[in-house]
């Protein structure tokens, strides 16, 4: 049984998270011994260009890369301090095995791999192939994402592979595919400053995609109006021309209300709608009842705001809509996105300079990692695993019989539920820290405790890896090479900057080794990630996300290439849908009518307050990397509960008091921070921290029926003042889940 082999403080003492504060070799360096490597940030979907300073196979610093056109040297605190994850005292350098009562002890690669193969065979023989599952991540390169999908279907023959993009991009992707037939931001970022009105829905751009802020400010200097929809006044909302403090889950009220007003006042493009779209009649019918008054009741804001938004957006000459997790992390996440996209299509302002639409991808390869076949329902090239033609095409690429490819598997949340109820007994995970990042964290920890055998591949011992039987030391982004696809759909190249330390290996080598031991040496016989990319190109040929015309050389020479790129003479496609040509077989955009419905759990007498969760600028996702970097923890050391002074007063809570935020599923004890920038019916807790400091102890395991994204943005909670906790977890350092 995979349970924690010793106490959490004991594990933390050995494996961290500890803080790294001084780079390898100290602060003052001898610069002429260095080289500078142009590569990209490992963190968010912006994938900013950055140069890493290298000395003696060690990353010792950074330098902006001003020639890279997307960010032109601009960075954020995470990118600047990224080099502090290298030469880190917590870095895993040998395989580890769980030893009951003693923790994790080194084991050689050979016995580790032998044991893994034996356990996979045992569990699959006794319970069927699907009883062994794989969870992967969207920070993996395209090559690794492709490899993981192929590994699951060919080497493991399990249907159950899914990835943490399930917590990120799936609502946006599904909506975009439904309307446009393509799952990608429609425009390059260079279109943003050319728009005269910009609508940002549920996107804390300044903190989660910092360099995009500059594009917004450029637009503003050019005279653009900015509309921001968010329950919190985030830094960009401060300068918005119209800030709409929507009630969590009320977004459809605003979108449908705006469209209602636009139709009423003739602020839609009837000609565009007639020539380039289908389904508008149903949408017109659906929004008829969304008068400003009705819409305002849903949105929890004054009706005038909705009218004003329509008046700004409706008649504008050019426009750009951006949305992110704020509207996507809902049990109606897809519908939220559809309602937003309807505003774009009804205006006819898409596929032109300064006119468009984008979803802001969260994870490093949030775009590419969802195209290469590691989703439970997808094969490479964004192909459908249930489509016989798609299956045949990929079976031929892989050289396997079509019928040997498993069908659709479970998505991340149902997959963890299947572990909890015993249907899945074995797990390999890479690049995923679900004990911090999935909703209902107590349930997730229970599930992991029930696994018969669990292999975790990572570079640090994450909170999730503590449940593993075997931990394999993989590679940091800078220790391997490969491509990612950024927020714009631009495919870029990460260079290998240093080699993995100690006995750590590049992730792709670990997977290929495992595949060979599982009896498929020939199908995983790659000499390099570039080899994998060459196969990925062929596998994507003719698909929506066509990479077949790209080579690493071309990507490098052109500062990235936008897909689709169907042949080597093709320049790539920065802007989609030019001339009103959309991705569906009929070439049209398909309007989808949307009706508002309540969130899975609405506040009630017992749990009367909305909890919404999100990120802060100095931390990234589950914090496996950023909670190990000294200055990033100093910047925002522990999660706080943002609460409006009026609500705090009613509950007898003062600034910096400890509060217990409690839902039906669990609680988190953090300090209160009184701010007027949040709705008084809502509190916010960022989710980057583990254990008793995890906002996800409270969130709900409700998922969108189409995208299966969890509802991180709405849970019902109650809040009470408590004493500062002094239990063993609270006494840990803040980066490990303690309090200060």
């Amino acid at each position, binding site marked *: 049984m995979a349970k924690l082999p010793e106490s959490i403080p004991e594990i933390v003492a050995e494996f961290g998270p500890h803080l790294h504060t001084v780079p390898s070799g100290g602060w003052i360096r001898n610069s002429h011994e260095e080289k500078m490597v142009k590569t990209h940030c490992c963190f968010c979907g912006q994938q900013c260009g950055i140069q890493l300073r290298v000395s003696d196979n060690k990353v010792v610093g950074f330098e902006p890369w001003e020639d890279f056109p997307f960010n032109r040297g601009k960075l954020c605190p995470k990118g600047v301090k990224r080099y502090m994850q290298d030469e880190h005292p917590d870095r895993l350098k040998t395989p580890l095995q769980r030893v009951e009562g003693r923790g994790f002890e080194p084991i050689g690669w050979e016995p580790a791999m032998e044991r893994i193969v034996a356990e996979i065979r045992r569990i699959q023989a006794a319970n069927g192939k699907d009883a062994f599952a794989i969870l992967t991540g969207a920070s993996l390169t395209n090559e690794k994402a492709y490899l993981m999908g192929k590994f699951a279907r060919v080497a493991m023959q399990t249907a159950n592979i899914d990835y943490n993009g399930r917590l990120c991009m799936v609502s946006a992707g599904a909506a975009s595919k439904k309307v446009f037939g393509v799952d990608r931001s429609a425009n390059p970022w260079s279109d943003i400053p050319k728009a005269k009105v910009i609508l940002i829905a549920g996107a804390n751009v300044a903190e989660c995609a910092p360099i995009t*802020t500059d594009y917004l400010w450029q637009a503003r200097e050019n005279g653009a109006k900015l509309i921001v929809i968010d329950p919190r006044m985030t830094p960009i909302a*401060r300068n918005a021309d119209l800030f709409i403090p929507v009630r969590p889950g009320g977004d459809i009220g605003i979108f449908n209300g705006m469209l209602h007003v636009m139709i009423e006042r003739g602020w839609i493009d009837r000609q565009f709608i007639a020539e380039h779209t289908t389904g508008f009649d149903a949408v017109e019918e659906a929004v008829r009842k969304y008068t400003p008054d009705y819409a305002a009741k849903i949105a929890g804001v004054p009706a005038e705001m909705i009218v004003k938004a329509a008046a700004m957006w409706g008649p504008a000459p050019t426009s750009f809509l951006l949305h992110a997790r704020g509207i996507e992390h809902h049990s109606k996440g897809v519908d939220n996105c559809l309602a937003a996209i309807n505003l774009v299509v009804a205006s006819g302002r898409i596929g032109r300079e300064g006119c468009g639409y984008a979803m802001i991808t969260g994870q490093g390869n949030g775009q590419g990692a969802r195209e290469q076949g590691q989703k439970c329902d997808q094969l490479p090239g964004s192909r459908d695993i249930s489509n016989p033609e798609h299956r045949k095409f990929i079976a031929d690429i892989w050289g396997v019989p079509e019928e040997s490819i498993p069908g659709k598997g479970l998505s991340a949340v149902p997959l963890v539920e299947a572990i909890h109820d015993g249907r899945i007994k074995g797990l390999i995970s890479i690049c995923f820290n679900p004990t911090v990042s999935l909703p209902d964290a107590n349930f997730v920890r229970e599930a992991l405790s029930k696994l018969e055998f669990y292999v975790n591949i990572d570079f640090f011992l994450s909170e999730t890896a503590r449940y593993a039987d075997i931990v394999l030391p993989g590679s940091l982004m800078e220790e391997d090479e490969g491509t990612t696809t950024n927020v714009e759909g631009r495919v870029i190249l990460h260079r290998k900057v240093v080699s993995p330390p100690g006995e750590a290996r590049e992730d792709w080598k670990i997977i290929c080794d495992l595949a060979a031991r599982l009896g498929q040496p020939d199908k995983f016989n790659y000499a390099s990630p570039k080899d994998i990319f060459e196969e990925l190109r062929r596998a994507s040929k003719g698909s929506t996300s066509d990479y077949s015309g790209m080579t690493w050389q071309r990507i490098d020479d052109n500062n990235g290439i936008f897909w689709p790129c169907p042949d080597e003479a093709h320049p790539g496609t920065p802007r989609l849908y030019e001339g009103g040509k959309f991705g569906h077989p009929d070439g049209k955009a398909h309007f989808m009518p949307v009706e508002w419905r309540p969130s899975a759990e609405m506040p009630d007498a017992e749990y009367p307050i909305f909890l919404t969760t999100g990120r802060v600028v100095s931390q990234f996702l589950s914090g496996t990397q950023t909670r190990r970097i000294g200055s990033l923890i100093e910047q925002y050391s522990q999660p706080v509960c943002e609460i409006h002074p009026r609500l705090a007063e009613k509950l007898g809570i003062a600034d910096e008091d400890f509060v217990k935020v409690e839902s039906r599923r669990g609680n988190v004890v953090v300090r209160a921070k009184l701010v007027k920038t949040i709705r008084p019916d809502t509190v916010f807790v960022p989710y980057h921290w583990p254990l008793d400091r995890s906002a996800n102890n409270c969130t709900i395991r409700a998922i969108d029926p189409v995208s299966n994204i969890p509802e991180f943005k709405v849970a019902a909670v109650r809040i009470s003042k408590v004493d500062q906790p002094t239990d063993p977890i609270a006494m840990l350092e803040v980066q490990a889940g303690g309090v200060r």
Partner: protein
Amino acid sequence: MSERIFFIDPTRCIHCRTCEASCASRDDHHGITMIHFTTTYPGGTSNRFAQACMHCTDPRCVRVCPVNAIPVAADGTVLGIDRDRCTGCKLCVEACPFEVPLYVESLNTVMKCDMCYDRCLGGERPLCVTACPTGALAFTSLAEAEEKRKGMILRDWTSAGEKIHTSAGLISHDDGDLFGNLLFDIADAVQGTDPSFSNADGAR
């Protein structure tokens, strides 16, 4: 004075502290940032914005230094403190109207922003400006700043009765509001909206 000038544009600032992180990473900074956040209290609320050396044309820090430890370059850049000369007396810390020089106890010296003089000589921009994700920091000509940025460029100040002119400029926006909608209270904005769709009793 060189053609390019350091600008601070507080409306663009998102307080992400990339400037501090990058400044602290400079080779001779010992992990210490020379740019820091200053808190102001407009209208009863607080806001912070990045404060770097403003490079006064007649710098008080230089005037008060008893050991001539703060050199000024030919172009007017007020350079970093000569650590061999500095005695740690902190007169410059007291004198600076912008609270820029920083006494570092572990080194018994004062350190200050030199606008990355070495980088700028090579044609680059200061590291904090280059890394700033929002354009809240800029290093460009006065003409370009006036053309590309809305607002007024402030370079004249009064401190302790003394008129001070700085090379660096602070960009103040037309409406005189440096920081955007700081007085906004969401509770006022949603006051009286219909709670029937949420049943959120916690806040009414």
